[in-house]
Each structure stands twice: as C-alpha cells, then as structure tokens.
C-alpha cells in the first residue's frame, strides 16, 4: 500500500497552498476534501464561478476571484487530489515498520478506505459559532454561511426579502454580495455592542498595516448606508417566532422592543476553528479570550503537541483567507523540515517571508475581534441548546449544578453532545453554561471528549473498509 509523505485534509486556501509548496519539494501529497471542487468555504465553487462570462464572479468580489489562481496552481501541482472524500477518523499508525505515521479513514463514493501518510496537515477550516436563541431551530432560520454556500454553489438567492442578524465581516460581505446580485434585504440587525468604536480604538493603529481590508470593510458599511437599507444597532434578545415556519422576529435595542414579519432570517456571530479532529486526537488546546474559542496549541512550524500532526488555516485560529495562505506555506516548510528534506537552517531562512506575510495578514484581526465580540447575553432556560437531543439551557444548567464542572459528566447525564453533530452545535454553549453555574473562567471548563467518528459514516461503509476495489 502506498504511504504518502503528507496527507492534507481540506482543499481551502491553507490546504492548497501547502500542497503546492510540498509538491515543489517533490514530496508525495494526498489532499482529501469534502467538496466536489477545490476552494474550501471561502472560495467555494471558485473554478466554476470564475469562468469567463459568469455574472457571479463580479458579485462575489476580487478576493474571491483570486482563489481561481490558487486553485489553478493546486490542480497543476501533482498532488493526489481526492474531492468528495469525507474523513471520519484519524489514528496514529501502530505499525512498527513506519518510524512515524498516520492512518486516515475516509469515505468516497460509499467506499471506505484507510490512507497512510507520514505527516498529517489539518487544513479543515472553521465553522460558524452556534448561538442559541429562542426559535433558532425554526425552519426559515439559517446561518449566513449556509446562505452563502447556496450563493456560491449555484448562484441561489434566498426567496423574498431576508433579515440578516449578527456581527462580523461575513454578514456585511454577504449583504454586499446579495445587493450586487439583486437579492432583497429586509433589514440588517447589528448585534455588535454600540460602544464598538471605543472597543476598537486601541487596535486601530495595528490594523492600519492591513489598510486594504479595512477599506473594503468600510466600503461594505458605506454601501449599506447609501442603499437606504433598514439597519438596527445594539440588537439583543433576538427571537424567531412562528409555527412550523418563521413568521415574525422580535428584538431589543436600547430604545425598546421591536418586531417585524419575516420569512427568512440569516444569523451569524463569527467563526470558530474546527477543532474536533485535534480534540479527538487529544492534542493540547488553548482558550482564546479574544475569539471565545479553542485552538490547538502549535509550535512555530504549525505542529501540534502530537508529533507529525500539523494544523494550518482557520482551524488554527480565525484569521481569514490571506492568513490561511501564509499558514499553509509555513506548515509546508515545517513539514518539509520534519521529514528531513529541508535542513533546520534553511527552514528558518525560508520562513522569514512567511512570518512577515502572516503577521501582515493578521494585522486587522485584533480590531475585528474587539469590534465583533461573541454574544454574551443570557440564554433563556427555555431555549434549545443541544439540537440533536433537544435539550434546553435550563436542563443543561440543572445538570451543571448537580455535580462537578466537567462537560463529560454533563454529557453523560443529559446526552448533550452525543448526537450526530458531536457537540459542534452545543459544545461551547454547554461549556459556557457550566462555567456560569460554577462561577469559573470559561477557559478552565474545557470541552467534552470527542468520540469517533468525526463525521457520520454508514455501517455499510464501515464494513467496506479494507475491501477496496482493486
């Protein structure tokens, strides 16, 4: 069986960049990605949408179009690219013959197989931060990210006027794209605190190093203002009301309660790194107060606390696409160094430019983090927190109070986090409720154990393992 030098999981900016760089050093690379085409979330569908004559390319913007160049280099790199591949388990190889190695369990076209590699690069990106509020599970309520996927994968615009609620660059960008492509927006509910400017000011100077991004963001905001779009600021206590479907939304501002009829509500409260693979592999993680999320602890080469396992891109911390390219390049250097094809001295030399690019790409991040903090409003006892098991905040709170501040205990007692999402939708909220119940810092609570598989796999696929077609 072929043993690859490197298996890269994810074909977004970080994964593609690393694949290109590793191939240039003549290392064998396999790239496993869930999507049908390269690009990740940020550049989803970039090859198709940037073909000549595509009206979407203009609407999606210049930074999106840049992805087409990266995808082209990636396609030409000679990496063994396997789209539509779902990675559901990663294990350290127990084979004595291999000095160090990993096994990646992956399903493609209903056929499961094990791929072996000497190093792993997780470039599996981020997910939207789930923020439960009354009615968030009601049909008609989607995330901005989900709506953007529809836009990028088929140019689908939501039906009828939509409400956008949340904070961060993505809702602004989506609103901007939607307007350019002729979509209708009923209103924008901004959940960032109103003292945003005061919060952001200390970080402004540093952020000016990335003035292009700042200008772009200001442009989106100005465009929104000029368009005469209804905009509410200081929004809290959002509720999505209705029967089987969303009918009405309700929210608070410092001026009082407001409401409006609504057919579609898109929400977004920032991104969090996808840490399930590194959590399940028991890598060390650190809590980021600024981003209110966990991230794997990495050395300067992008290597986790488990030797041979590297992370790049937003999975290592939310920094955006430009930083993801830089992190992918740095991880490629780190991997080449750890495989012995690059001496330590040459690796140190090679990373100078990468470090500089990463630092510049991150320049605006402290400003963004302070402008768009994770929501801290109290979650009502009746609000569903765990969607898979339909558990409310009240039930989680009660369980949290009954014993030690341990997410695994609360999980065992309530089943919260045991469903198909494996806690991707509820893990942070549960940890937050435990921290509140025990009056302790969120960083000290941790996260529940992640049990395999990382992604649901059918029993038929599991049985097909090792029976690979010749």
């Amino acid at each position: 069986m072929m043993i690859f030098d490197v298996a890269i999981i994810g074909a977004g900016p970080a994964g593609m960049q690393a694949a290109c760089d590793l191939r240039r050093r003549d290392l064998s690379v396999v790239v496993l990605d869930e999507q049908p085409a390269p690009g990740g979330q940020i550049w989803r569908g970039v090859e198709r949408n940037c073909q000549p004559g595509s009206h979407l390319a203009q609407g999606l913007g210049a930074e999106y179009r840049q992805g087409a160049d990266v995808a082209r280099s990636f396609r030409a790199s000679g990496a063994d690219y396997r789209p539509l591949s779902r990675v559901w388990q990663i294990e350290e190889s127990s084979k004595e013959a291999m000095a160090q190695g990993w096994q990646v369990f992956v399903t493609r076209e209903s056929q499961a197989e094990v791929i072996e590699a000497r190093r792993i690069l997780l470039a599996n990106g981020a997910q939207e931060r789930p923020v439960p509020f009354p009615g968030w599970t009601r049909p008609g309520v989607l995330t901005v990210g989900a709506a953007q996927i529809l836009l990028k994968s088929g140019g689908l615009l939501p039906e009828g006027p939509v409400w956008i609620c949340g904070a961060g660059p993505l809702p602004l960008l989506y609103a901007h794209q939607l307007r350019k492509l002729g979509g209708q927006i009923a209103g924008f509910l901004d959940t960032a605190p109103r003292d945003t400017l005061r919060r952001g000011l200390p970080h402004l100077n540093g952020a000016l190093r990335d003035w292009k991004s700042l200008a772009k963001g200001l442009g989106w905001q100005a465009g929104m203002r000029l368009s005469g779009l209804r905009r509410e600021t200081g929004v809290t206590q959002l509720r999505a009301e209705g029967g089987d479907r969303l009918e009405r939304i309700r929210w608070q501002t410092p001026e009082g309660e407001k409401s409006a009829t609504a057919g579609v509500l898109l929400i977004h409260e920032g991104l969090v790194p996808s840490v399930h693979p590194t959590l399940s592999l028991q890598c060390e993680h650190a809590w980021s107060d600024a981003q209110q999320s966990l991230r794997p602890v990495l050395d300067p080469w992008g290597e986790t606390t488990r030797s041979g396992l590297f992370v790049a891109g937003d999975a290592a911390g939310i920094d955006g696409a430009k930083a993801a390219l830089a992190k992918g390049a740095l991880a490629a250097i780190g991997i080449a160094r750890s495989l012995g094809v690059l001496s330590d001295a040459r690796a140190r030399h090679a990373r100078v430019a990468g470090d500089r690019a990463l630092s510049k790409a991150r320049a605006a991040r402290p400003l963004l983090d302070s402008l768009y903090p994770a929501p801290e409003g109290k979650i009502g006892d009746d609000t569903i927190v765990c969607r898979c098991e339909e558990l409310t905040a009240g039930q989680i709170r009660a369980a949290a109070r009954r014993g030690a501040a341990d997410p695994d205990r609360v999980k065992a007692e309530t089943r919260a986090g045991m469903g198909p999402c494996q806690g991707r939708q509820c893990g942070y909220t549960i940890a937050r409720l435990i921290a509140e119940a025990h009056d302790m810092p969120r960083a000290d609570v941790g996260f529940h154990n992640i049990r395999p598989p990382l992604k649901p796999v059918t029993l038929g696929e599991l049985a097909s393992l090792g029976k690979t077609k010749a």
Partner: protein
Amino acid sequence: MRAGTDLIVIGGGLHGLSAALQSARRGLRVVLLEGAFTGRHASGATAAGVRSLNRAVEELPLSLEAQAQWEDMIALVGDDCGFHAGGQVQVAMDTEAEARIKARIARLEAAGMRHEQWIGPDRLTELVPVMQPGALGAAYVARDGSADPHRTIRAFRAACLDAGVEILENHPVTWLARDGSLWTVVAGGTTHVAPTVVNAAGAWGRQIAKLAGDPLDVGIKNSMMIVTERCEPCLGPVISAQNRKLSFKQTADGTFLIGGGVQGRLRPGGGSASVDFGALSGAMSTTLALFPWVADLRLVRAWAGMEAATADLLPVIGPSHRAPGLIHVFGFSGHGFQLVPSVGRVIADLAETGRTRTELSAFDPGRLATNRKAA
C-alpha cells in the same frame, strides 16, 4: 481526617454505588471515593444488557436474583432505570451453534434452572421479524432485556445520596494502608479511616489491590460499542449469536447499539481506551448477515470502555485473604451490569456482618493471587 466512617467504597461505578447504597441502607456510614465522576468508565460505556442468558453457571444464582430485582428496581432505587424486559435472544447460525445451545439448555435443566428455552426458526421470526431468515433457532429468555445505563447511574447515585452516602468525585485513591483494625485511605488530598474498605475500582481494581498488599492477576478489556442514528422502533429483544461476536439491540431512543466484545486499544498511559476501526469493520459481518438493512444506517458514535477482566471471565467478589477488612468486587469481564443489584446485596452482607448466604467460592480473590511484591 474523618472519624466515624464504617465503610469506604473505592470506585463510583455501578457496583461501587450499589454496594454503598445497600450498606448505607443497613445503617452503615459510607464514604464513596471516585477518581473522576460516577459512571465515568465501564458503567457509562456499557451496552446495559440485563441478561441471564448464556451466563456462566457459577454466576446464575446471583443473576437470577438480580433478574427479580431488575423487575422491581423502583423498590431499590426509586426508578425503573429504563429497564425493559424485551427478552434476550442468542441465535444459532449453524448446526454447531445449535448443538452447543441445546447442550447448555439441557445442562441447565438438569441443574433445575429453566430460565432459558430453545425456540425454532418460526418462533424466532415471530419475535424478531426484522432479522434475515436462515438462522436455525435460538436460545431465549423472555424476562431478560436491557436498561438505560446513564439513567441507572443517576438513579443509584441519587439513592446513595438519599441514603446518606457521602460521594466524593474527583478523588482518586493514592494511598491505603491498614493499621490494626482500621484502614486509612488517602484520596484527592483527603484522608478517610474505616474498618472496612470495598475495592470496586473496576479497571483500576488491580491497582487498588496492589496498593492494599493483595496483588491479583487481573487484566484489562476495552470492549467497543457503536451507536447508530435513530430509527422507528422495530426490534424488541437484544440479539446475540452463539460463537460470534455480536450484541445488537435497539434502545428506547430508537438508536441501535452494536457491541459484542470486539476490543479497542488502550491509550498510552493506560488511563483510557480508544476505538480500533479496523477491528470494528471486521466485526460488522455478523451484524450485516443477520440485519442487512443496517448497512444504510449512520454510525453516530463509537467508543471503548475500560473494564477489568479475569482469565476465567468470572468476577472477583469476596474478602481479601491477605488484607483483612478489604472486600473486592471488580473484574466483571464485560458482563457485570445485570449483577449490580444482587452483588451490591452480597457486599452489604459482607460489610455488615462479614458473612453472606451466597456461595462465592468461584469468585474467590485467592484464585488470582500473585506473589506479594515489596511495597
């Protein structure tokens, strides 16, 4: 230092909780020390089969006593623990399996035990219509079934607290020693003294035994389980197969639990176990042969639970020969769940009076004693 404790129970799994509960009910003052949280390991990872079917004959008196206790669990812990007497079925897929099952049932009947019965293919299809036809028949116990493990842990824990048991979680035992007639146990920075100590530490039972000066030859098992997405209820009994690694049941939630003793791996450091998907994959063949439709179901979670296992697969139950005042209750080798209520009664007997009416010779710790090592 705490004074006035009669009994220290080490281990907050179900056997520790049951022993603590039933001892406290008899008026003993009980402290339970748990290294993590109650039910963290085997008790929380179990398939929770309530099974007298295909038990070792030595375990049957305790098992049949437990069977009656499960039917009236409310009397013991104030909750039915999700027990559902859907029956247990052990399928014979070939003539050799059929011969073995029939021989076993004959032996049981000769010994006066009639809980198992042989059922032919027609009755089997009637009982389990979702199973592929073709099996030759099965052993069947209608009174068996399964329970909800986490609900059981909650119920025993709550009953313990009601009965006055002091439960200390995050208190791993680091030291124990006997001075005269009293044991001193140090756990999580606290010190406890009592004349009697129960070692119900499961996978850590051998460490406790060694600390106490009674090293026993007991190994570790890491049986794996998988659970699927939810489906409409369609399967009443728990299904196993003679000579095959299979345990298949539908829970009250509608998920399917598949186990059968396929072994996972011990993680480096030995503190927990991890799943071996290669082994799980190989073990899917029996399940798919009997229930081909599960191929389309999504596997939602897989796990491996750590459990102490003995060479003869019988538990260690009874007073230590070398450490007076220490009572062992561990090493259930992957099938201790059903025995929780009856074994707790036995340990309470021993803790209260030093004697029990139950025959324990097959479970005697002495059979596993290894040479005492210098401390």
